[in-house]
């Protein structure tokens, strides 16, 4: 629970208070003008490169950009992106926007996509493995890391792809949740390549791109191929913003800003090393 009364007992979420205070200040100093409502964003407080409470993630930066364009400020509602995230944040009306979800996301109303990324193979540069295809015969022998979800019948697409090719015995799972008591828990799967725990990891692009840049051991990322396993297992995903079902007014407003600020958003994604596939 993220109610204000529980702040201090909950390591994962702390409701933003500054935004509300600021809004009050604005209301007080400009009584004759209707102050624009803050952009209320649902966000994970410890999940770089996407977001954190210090607002260092690229989703924090994109949220800021949008708010500035709308002449307002961001007000965060922090909640770990776990089971019940949408229900406890967006649906519970604690916030109005989730900055990144797949465009086909069913739990909310999505904007048109504003970027497209891909799963990538991460390897050590000095190994010169250059893995880029699920059909690379070496994958039958190499030690492979995949992101593990922890939900019935659910896996990251590379885990499904490898299983479909009979590659299971040499596959190690790394929880997408990780140990939440540590900083940026999803980075373990990239560190495992640097440390030689696995030879290659199949990682969602933004996570890979960012932690490769942070790694002391030089690492390389190659988009996986094919882009889709037939009949339909995609490795490339369109990413949109999400609002509550029925909130078409906000959706339309966000789409206008996404159009207007497309170049600046691209620059932010570049800065964070997000591997891109043309939309």
């Amino acid at each position, binding site marked *: *629970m993220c109610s204000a009364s*529980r702040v201090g*007992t*909950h*390591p*994962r979420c702390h409701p933003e208070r500054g935004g509300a205070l600021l809004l009050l200040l604005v209301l007080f100093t400009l009584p004759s003008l209707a102050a624009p409502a803050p952009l209320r964003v649902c966000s*994970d407080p410890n*999940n770089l490169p*996407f977001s954190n409470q210090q607002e260092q993630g690229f989703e924090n930066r994109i949220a800021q950009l949008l708010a500035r364009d709308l002449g307002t400020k961001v007000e965060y509602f922090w909640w*770990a*992106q*776990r*089971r*019940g*995230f949408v*229900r406890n944040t967006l*649906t519970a009306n604690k916030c109005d926007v989730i900055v*990144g*979800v*797949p465009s*086909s*996301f*069913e*739990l909310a109303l999505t904007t048109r996509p504003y970027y497209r990324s891909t799963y990538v193979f991460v390897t050590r540069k000095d190994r010169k493995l250059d893995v880029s295809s699920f059909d690379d015969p070496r994958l039958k022998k190499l030690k492979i890391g995949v*992101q*593990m*979800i*922890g*939900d*019935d*019948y*659910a*896996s*990251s*697409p590379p*885990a*499904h792809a490898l*299983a*479909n090719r009979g590659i*299971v*015995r*040499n*596959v190690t*799972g790394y*929880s*997408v*949740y990780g*140990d*939440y008591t540590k900083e940026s*828990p*999803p980075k373990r799967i990239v560190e495992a390549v640097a440390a030689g725990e696995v030879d290659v990891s199949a990682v*969602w692009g*933004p*996570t890979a791109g960012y932690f490769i840049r942070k790694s002391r051991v030089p690492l390389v990322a190659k988009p996986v191929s094919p882009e889709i396993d037939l*009949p*339909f*297992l*995609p490795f490339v*995903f369109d990413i949109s913003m999400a609002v509550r*079902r029925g909130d078409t007014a906000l959706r339309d407003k966000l789409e206008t800003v996404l159009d207007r600020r497309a170049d600046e958003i691209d620059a932010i994604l570049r800065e964070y090393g997000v591997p891109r596939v043309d939309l």
Partner: protein
Amino acid sequence: MQFVKATLLLLLAVLLGACDSGPQEKQAPDATKASATGKAMLPAFSTAANEDGQWLTPQKDYANTRFSGLAEINLSNVDQLKAVTTFSTGFLNGHEAPPLVIGDTMYLVTPFPNVLYALDLKEPGGATKWVYRPNPDPAAQGVACCDVVNRGASYADGKVIINTLDNHTIALDAQTGKELWNTKLGDINRGETMTMAPFIVKDKVLVGNSGGEMGVRGWLTALDLQTGKIVWRAYSTGPDADVLIGPGFKPFYRMDQGKDLGVRTWPPEAWKTGGGTVWGWISYDPETNLIIYGTGNPGPWNPEQRPGDNKWSCALFARDADTGQARWAYQLGPHDLFDYDGVNESILLDLNIGGKMRKTLVRPERNGYVYVMDRTTGEVLSAKTFGYVNSTAGVDLKTGLLIPVKEKEPKVGKVVRDICPAAPGTKDWQPSAFSPRTGLIYITHQNLCMDFEGVEANYIAGTPFVGANVKMYPGPGGHRGEVTAWDPVNGRAVWKIKEHFPVWSGALATAGDLVFYGTMDGWAKAIDARTGTEVWKFKTGSGIIAPPMTYRGPDGKQYVAFVAGVGGWAGAIVSGDLDERDATAALGFANAMQDLKKATTRGGMLYVFGL
């Protein structure tokens, strides 16, 4: 309640011929007399003949009968049963825990945040004696799979023991509520939670973990009742040394024999996150000093990512109660495909099978079969379906193998329709009751099937992933719940009651020849234990998913207690306020429960009924 009348009359005739149908007796039956009629009997060690009017553990007794010898409330007067006391727990999540009564005090533990109330039954209305608040870590709520339930407290030697969602086992002085010890057994950061009721055998408290789908490694841990120190821990996966398998291990079937099967039946390393959690019910047989319990589903991978039997997930263990060393094991579901956890109750009964009295355990299993097994050896004596099953084709009694059905095998990217039962099984955790007076087991359960459709893009912690689109819906007949009266000797249903919603409450049987259960739309019900005829009902403020219990109050009178408070996996659509348009919410259960929001609202409340 609806009956298939013709069937009922027919079965009633059979039943009356087969069972002792004498007049209502006020005393408990002679439990040890051998039956010439083939009626199921309580085991010789049962204390049911000396009913003391208390309720010390959710299962009532070591044999897991949920039977009370109290008979003051019976068929002749049950229509006069009325509410005498109510008590709000103050919480909105699913309430799966029955109260306990020890002496003149009632104890009730709530779902997260796992508050324990001690109520003074001597005071009019049951005044609060003390309240214990463990203040579990709120982050545990994001880890639990299926609502933040707790399945009850247990009592022994002046101590009430509870488990918290964030993995603490806590002993309290039953008189004062003072914390005597508090032991942390697991870590929410590894996906572990605790939801089961502790089970106390002699000087040990037995506790297991939950979280199979999160990459948890399942275990059962024994703590010293006096100090809370860990005495032993038996893992469900891994090398024999970790599973507490040694020279005394004698599994009945060849498929369960061999060294380090907890490692060798998995891809390398996969056993380390293999599931097999222990979150259901434990039985104890004092004659053989064996504890018997089942393990949960394998995880966290899809079936095709974990080739092999995946031992010891979905398996039954019999262990020495003092050392934890396994004596036998039987894997109910090798390489589980459907999330059919093996954690249901084993009711310990003595049955006349083929003219020979056998010491058995009887398990209404999630996969849809009632297993009758020799509890000393692990041999399966029979396995008959108690609901509609097409996901498997029976149990081979020679090999012990559950026979798979190829075309019902779910695989991501493939469409598989009409898998019965659905993932929660024909019966989930909700405990059955047994009456030695009728020889019948009263099983409250589901009638659900599921479709497994293609792929669905989803998103967690910044990562898009792909999962199955699972949708559950009512099974044959269109109703979602059933109460089945089961004759374990002859392996057949004697009668069935159809219920609109899954019956998620479990049952209580009494010497008054009554069976009590609750419905998810909030009806507390009593039925005639012999015929299934509804003889009393009362509408509670929220749906009922906690097993009812009965006790003798300080005034010497019999009472029946129900806890209302809908939720759990089945009721998450109400307790979690899920959007009824999300068919795949609650792992597909929401699709089958879209109308529950119209039928009930949430809120925990105790109701005590008396004459």
